[in-house]
């Protein structure tokens, strides 16, 4: 290790070390506030440092909003929450041009930025807004810019959207189309807490005098942007890149490597974005695991959040109650790591 630190690229080395330290600190601070949900917290961090957005799915009251808010606090980033409702308009998100009058009484058109102009945006119950409104947010997520009037305005960097949706109440909702789902790097399932976790939640929030967890600031926007660049540098061996490609191909029913369940239940497999999400998430996870290279375990660990929302299932899957998670599991079981 000594000769490594003395290498010419000392700055980059420091950045890498800094990434590992800060990422772990961030995770620690988040865990101070969020009880349980270890996988969800980890996956949100992976998506954040991979530069992607997250779709959180879980019933109300599981701490999704708290997670996003705490993340904003820990990272010293500007955080906005948008509650999606059926009457929410795109301008309510991206902003609008208004007539304003200055002290001299002169009137002018001024762009009033919407809540999307923040580093971390929580799109709560995104499936309750109309598709038009949804697409306004999704365009901002994809392009990292907002077009209003004749001007195109860049969003602040880093820009991280966490959308939530309730899987139970589907009446009066507008499910996200597959193309828009594909823009989320990860779809994270927020499970119901276990018994011990519920007791801990109770102890923290209801009982008087309970321990209060106040997260400390660990990083700022610049740190996050630097960490984003570092994560991209993590080494990926060719045989593992091949493995990632095989995993993606195995989700396609027409591919010879696809397992039988995929052939039976899947209409369309994961897109190239899925492959990017898989590798990007694996790179971040490798760093969080004190590794500077992607391992097969990293790819396998991020396969579920990266691919579950990218499989378009057929009617037969819904009739048989087959979930995307089970299908991704089948893919992981059937595809072997190629021999180098």
């Amino acid at each position, binding site marked *: 290790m000594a000769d490594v630190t003395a290498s010419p690229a000392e700055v980059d080395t420091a950045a*890498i070390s800094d990434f590992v330290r800060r990422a772990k600190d961030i995770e620690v601070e988040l865990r101070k506030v969020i009880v349980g949900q270890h996988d969800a917290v980890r996956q949100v961090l992976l998506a954040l440092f991979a530069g992607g957005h997250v779709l959180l799915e879980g019933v109300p009251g599981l701490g999704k909003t708290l997670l996003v808010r705490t993340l904003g606090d820990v990272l010293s980033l500007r955080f906005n929450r948008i509650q999606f409702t059926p009457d929410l308009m795109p301008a309510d998100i991206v902003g609008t041009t208004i007539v304003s009058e200055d002290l001299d009484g002169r009137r002018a058109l001024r762009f009033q930025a919407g809540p999307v102009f923040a580093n971390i945006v929580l799109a709560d119950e995104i499936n309750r807004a109309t598709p038009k409104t949804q697409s306004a947010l999704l365009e901002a997520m994809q392009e990292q810019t907002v077009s209003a009037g004749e001007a195109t305005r860049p969003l602040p960097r880093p820009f991280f959207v966490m959308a939530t949706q309730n899987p139970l109440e589907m009446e009066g909702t507008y499910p996200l189309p597959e193309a828009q789902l594909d823009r989320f790097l990860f779809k994270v399932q927020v499970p119901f807490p276990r018994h011990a976790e519920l007791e801990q939640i109770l102890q923290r929030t209801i009982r008087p005098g309970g321990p209060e967890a106040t997260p400390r600031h660990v990083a700022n926007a610049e740190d996050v942007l630097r960490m984003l660049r570092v994560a991209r*540098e*993590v080494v990926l*061996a060719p045989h593992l890149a091949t493995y990632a490609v095989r995993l993606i191909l195995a989700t396609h029913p027409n591919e010879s490597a696809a397992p039988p369940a995929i052939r039976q239940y899947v209409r369309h497999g994961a897109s190239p974005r899925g492959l990017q999400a898989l590798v990007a998430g694996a790179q971040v996870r490798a760093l969080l695991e004190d*590794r*500077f290279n*992607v391992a097969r375990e990293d790819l396998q660990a991020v396969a579920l959040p990266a691919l579950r929302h990218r499989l378009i299932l057929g009617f037969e899957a819904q009739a048989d109650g087959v979930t995307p998670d089970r299908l991704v599991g089948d893919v992981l079981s059937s595809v072997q790591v190629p021999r180098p």
Partner: protein
Amino acid sequence: MGAALRPWERRLALESVQRWLIRGAIGAFALGSLVLAVGWVTPWPEAELRPWAFQAALPLLLAAVIVALLPTRKLKRAANLDTRLRFGDRLASAWVYRDSNQSIVHMQRADAIARLDKRSPEKELVWRPSRHETGALAATFVIAVLLLVTPSPQQAVLDRQAAEQLAVQQTSQRLEALRQEAITAPSLTPEQARRLDELLQQAQAELNRAHTEQEATTILARTQDQLGQQVADPNAALRDEALAAMSETLAAEPLARPLGDALQHEDAQATRDAVKALSAQADQLSDVQRQALSRALQRASNVGRSDPRSAAALREAARSIAAGESAQSALAATDAALREAIQAANAQASLQQTTQRLRDMSAQLAGHMPLNAEDAAPTSGAGVVRNGQPNGLAELGTPVALDSTAIGGLRDPSAAPGSGAGIGAADPAASGAQAAAAGPAAENVFVPGRAGDGAVDQSLTDQPFTVRGAPRPYRDVLNQYAQSGRDYVDRPDVSPAVRDLVKQYFQKLEEGQ
């Protein structure tokens, strides 16, 4: 990176050799067992299969070692170590990017090497065969050992085949002895001897190629048929009848009795002497004697017309003697014709003897060598006496005493009193027959027999050593009989008790010779 990996690679190579050795051993035992198992399902000698099993197994083991020593790529070994040490693909990644100068690659490589340095190949790479491999090795080993030490169920078949092969081989040797003996028989013409020699040589060659008793029996049967068809005289029966009738007729006339006796014995020299004596006496005979002699010769000519030449010669001699002419030339012609007939009869007898011995060989080969009295009689050549009545076709007695009441067992001649004991019975009234139809024991008496009054239920084919008109002292044939008997009882399917009984019997006979 290479230096850091080297001790681990050496350890991996050692493991590879061990692993492939075990796999090779499993394969070798399995293949060897497979080869040995062939001997359990087919009658294949285990002694032949064992070297083959070894030759099949050894290359497999060597191939396994070669596979183990085949060089593998460094990246593959690094990936293998990653898996074994749970290094999260650190080593494979480090090896792939070993030439990169990126900071993160430096860190990754340093991290991999540092982690590798903290571990020891000897402690981390402790290889043991899997339970499946151990089980397979033990199972194949046990099966191979069992197949090696346990006698094959096909051994009985093999023993039977070996016994058959031995029997065929012995038959071939006997056939060779028979050939040597048969072709030197003086009674055979050179043409007969040549054809007999060819037939027997051909049969022997076929026997040498035969593997089973059935094949050998078929060959011997075919040879018998060929012998009868190609070598034997088709008129032999008529000629024999003629000679017998002539001898009987001549024996009834006192002047011609020596000639009749000589003909009865089918003795060419005695015939010549008798004819010479007649020729010398012919001129000194009275008319009555001449007429009587002429009538006797004429009758003999009449009854012996089945042999035209002899009949014609006798007729001419009868005419000459009756006419008071000199009968020298006629008797000389008679002598020549009769001697030729006797010669032919002796040749035929010799061929019949050869045929009979071939038949005996077939019987021995087929395991039909009888031990009871009725069936043993033909083999022994003894005339079988039933209910005290001599068998009419028995012509040659032997000292083999067969107790007609003790069916199924051979008895010591000395302990075989009573009627019917082992004497080739002839008509006691027959002229010249030295029949001993009854006696205290089997005696060393030779009885040239003739058809008698006894029940004729025994064909010539059942009298293997009985040669019509060719009596032979039993001393001459005892060795042959004894050898045949011993050969037969040496077969594995003959019980030891019977074997000892028969051997003792012949031993006593030979001691008393």
